[in-house]
């Protein structure tokens, strides 16, 4: 029985050095919809100007929805994906 949906949001990973930057790009997804994930595993890499950051899975479960395509821009705080927790 699944435990509910957890969002993968961009705010929690935003580095202190990029305080004044509001946009970023998803440079790499490491999962697709349906991929099983373990909490803490990197599921995406985002690029804020010249800085690359790994986005970890917030919970163990399955990716239910990917909201931002690879190479697409998003705003700080946007939700990147949804995970249904196991």
């Amino acid at each position: 029985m699944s435990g509910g949906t957890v969002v993968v949001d961009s705010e929690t990973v935003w580095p202190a050095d990029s305080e004044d930057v509001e946009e970023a790009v998803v440079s790499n997804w490491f999962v697709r919809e349906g991929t099983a994930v373990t909490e803490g595993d990197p599921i995406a890499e985002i690029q804020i100007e010249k800085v690359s950051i790994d986005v970890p899975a917030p919970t163990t479960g399955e990716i239910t929805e990917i909201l931002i395509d690879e190479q697409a821009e998003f705003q700080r705080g946007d939700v990147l994906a949804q995970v249904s927790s196991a």
Partner: protein
Amino acid sequence: MLSDTELQEMYGWMVTVRYYEERLQEEYLEGKQPAFDISAGPIPGELHLAAGQEAAAAGVCAHLHDDDTVTAPHRPHHVAIAKGVDLNRMTAEIFGRRTGLSKGKGGHMHLFDQDVNFAGSGIIAEGCPPAVGAALAAKMRGEDSVAVAYLGEGAISQGGFLESLNLASVQDLPVVFVIEDNDWAISMPKERVTDVEDGAQRADGFDIHGTRVDHDDAVAVYEAAGEAVGRARDGNGPTLLEVQVHRRMGHFMGDAEGYRPDADTERAKQRDSIERMKNTLQNAGIDESTIEDIRDRSHERVEEAIEWAKDQPEPDPDEAYEDVFTNPPAGWTPNPEPEVAETTGGDN
């Protein structure tokens, strides 16, 4: 003693360089936001900017004439400007236009201007042997021109540099090696990869005069360079001159400099050689409006060059196949048409 004219000329070069690099940074980042895509925008590829290194260019080039040869490394714009390279055509080259210095084929690391004997190259220390060669040619022809090779402090462990020192020394050649010490070889700080604090010490091993200018000060560079260039012109051989500068921007555009402590970047910015030069002009009694005038004209010149460059046509794709040889053999092409070789064999 520097005359007012010389001071103003050097200051003019320095502010031109600083503004040029800042403007190029803007142009370069266009089309590369929000994420940095190196091949996007009006200036694609790598770009190594010299903001912070102006003193090394101005102080040395003030002693040079058009027929003195200068070779520069992958971070060349400041040297090119001080040497008198055609700024419009240099800018067009950086923007990859057909009317650029190299017809768009070289880009910013491969700038050549034969009118002022300037050549840039992209491999570390690569410019040293050719500078030695230019000095050799001058000596053989009995001319009093000299050659200057620029290199970074990261290059002083490269074999080609050491071979150049030896050759210049053994043959007493009119060449000056200018090491621009900005403390960083991309992410490697000098102390991690070099055994000496003073790169000029390399000269000792080769029986060459070596000297180091510790401050980011164009006048101090001018004085040291005057001795070095003078020594060469008088037929008294090579000099190794190390100049402390600082790197205000990253190694290349796109370098997030995560490896560089903030304090280091801040400290670097405080050593601004342009501020220092401005003070020198003021102390020499040059008035504020003249100084501002120089700055304004420099900015205008940079804007003109960029505007001109962006107006230039891109090269035709077919031009990629030209200029391999000065005398291409009859019938030869670098692009043999993809002929389909057909046989009567095969059963399909």
